[in-house]
């Protein structure tokens, strides 16, 4: 009896091995065979950046048929840790590698491919269109709890924050909260869901990347500065961040070519704008990983 169990478990193990070796064989077989620049690029990470890279990769492959690019989401943390481990060629992130625990930023090379602006959004019947930076801070730290204190309707404020550790939240908190902690509140991790929640929940406030702001929600101005691309470019609008593509060491061959393409005018002038991002070329200032802004 015992013998049989051992035999069968060995068989099972064997079957698993067979499956797996079979797979790795076929994948390595498809890799090689070419003369010019060729290769397989996998880019993983930020879900916000994914559509841009995916679209750019599609266009890029039309002229470089030997290069195969796979773009996947999974989150900035996943992207950074996978590129650091060397399991993928490119890690997409909406956050500086320096800001993430457990990532050795020195090993990674940062390629900023776009700038994303974010704005606080509120449900339409809050009756508020403009706040000061300080008021915004007090809302998110739980000191102001009713819209009537800001001249709006008598309606409780429902704060919807972004997922802890997400790039969007890190950007927002560093620009608005100035080191204080946000109150415990609802959290969501995707722009789409946040937009839907804010648009349907009376008194709700959250923040969204510019491209997700539509007429269903009210984007607030801060200190009478409107959330526009131009205001971001000269840092009048403070809440913005870069979209990064990280590589481990300097990119080579196919990866290098692709990253160059991402920074080229083809992408920056057209795709980046179409997707609602701001081109890095248009920026008049730059920001480092500590949030210090300087002239370019």
């Amino acid at each position, binding site marked *: 009896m015992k013998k049989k169990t051992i035999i069968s478990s060995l068989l099972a193990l064997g079957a698993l091995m067979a499956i797996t070796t079979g797979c790795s064989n076929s994948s390595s077989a498809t890799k090689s065979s070419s003369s010019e620049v060729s290769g397989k690029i996998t880019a993983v990470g930020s879900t916000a950046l994914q*559509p*841009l890279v995916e679209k750019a990769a*599609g266009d890029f492959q039309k002229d470089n048929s030997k290069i195969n690019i796979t773009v996947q989401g999974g989150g900035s943390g996943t992207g950074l840790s996978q590129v650091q481990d060397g399991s993928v060629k490119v890690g997409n992130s909406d956050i500086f590698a320096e800001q993430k625990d457990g990532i050795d930023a020195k090993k990674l090379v940062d390629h900023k491919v776009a700038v994303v602006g974010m704005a606080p959004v509120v449900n339409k019947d809050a009756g508020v269109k403009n706040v000061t930076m300080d008021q915004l801070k007090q809302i998110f730290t739980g000191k102001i709890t009713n819209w009537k204190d800001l001249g709006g309707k008598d309606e409780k404020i429902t704060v919807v924050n972004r997922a802890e550790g997400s790039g969007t939240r890190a950007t927002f908190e560093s620009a608005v909260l100035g080191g204080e902690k946000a109150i415990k509140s609802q959290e969501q991790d995707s722009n*789409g*869901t946040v937009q839907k929640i804010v648009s349907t929940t009376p008194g709700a406030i959250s923040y969204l990347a510019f491209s997700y702001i539509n007429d269903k929600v009210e984007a607030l101005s801060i200190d009478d500065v409107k959330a526009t691309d131009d205001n971001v470019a000269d840092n009048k609008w403070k809440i913005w961040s870069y979209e990064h593509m990280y590589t481990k060491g300097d990119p080579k061959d196919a990866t290098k070519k692709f990253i160059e393409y991402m920074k080229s005018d083809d992408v920056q002038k057209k795709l980046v704008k179409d*997707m*609602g991002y701001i081109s890095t070329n248009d920026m008049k200032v730059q920001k480092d990983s500590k949030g210090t802004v300087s002239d370019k």
Partner: protein
Amino acid sequence: MNAKKSDKLATGMIYGLVGIVVSILVALLGYILYNGVPDINWHFLTSEAQSFSAGGGVRDQLFNSLYLLVLALIISFPIALGAGIYLSEYAKDNWVTDIIRTSIEVLSSLPSVVVGLFGYLLLVIQLNMGFSILAGAIALTFFNLPLLTRNIEESLRSVPDLQREAGTSLGLSGWKTITKIILPMALPGILTGLILCSGRIFGEAAALIYTAGQSAPSVDYGNWNLFTETSFLNPMRPAETLAVHIWKVNTESVTPDSSAISSASSAVLIIVILIFNLGARYLGNKLFKKMTASK
């Protein structure tokens, strides 16, 4: 209260419960179809998805969903069948079997995101499969197995012991008795399980995001060579399924018509499941009739 009265009362209550369930079902399906069907058209079904402009379709996603379903069933069904046979026919009633059963049930309660991440680390990274349909199919197998195994076991058990005795008393081996006599009789039950699992495969998103991926590179539907990168049959290519597409469109998409795409995709998904469901049932019944010669 006398028996007759309580009988009436209970029947009434059951009718009430069923009435509520049915109205929920109808409302739910109606809601999805009502919102989605007007946006379904030939163009939607046959064109590629768009990243940020309007007018994208779901051709690739639809195909990927079906292909992934087939692959996942090819992998999981035989394993579940073997395990189900083991549990219903060979397993003795002791603590080892108890542990096996419990661990299978625990496996089924894992959140799909955990299964997805496990699949990602094991299949995509460790075994170097990359984001691929195959990795997705294996990940789906992980949580298909408990439900399917359990279901096959139950179906086999529901076949009366008399049938087993008939087989063994004729000198047939246990294996032949199971595969040729018990299994055909258990077929309708097994089919239900299979359909439920297919439904789950169709609707699963979280596990696939990390394994089959969430991008659908364009593929060549004329290329039948399994091993080329662009072939639609290549199991090593990344593939976004319909459910993942719905998830993506809802959460991060910037396409102006995202809500239309989402509701139309949901409706397509339901219609496909319905077709699959009825088709499987029809074929299963035919097969059952053929195998048991009951006309």
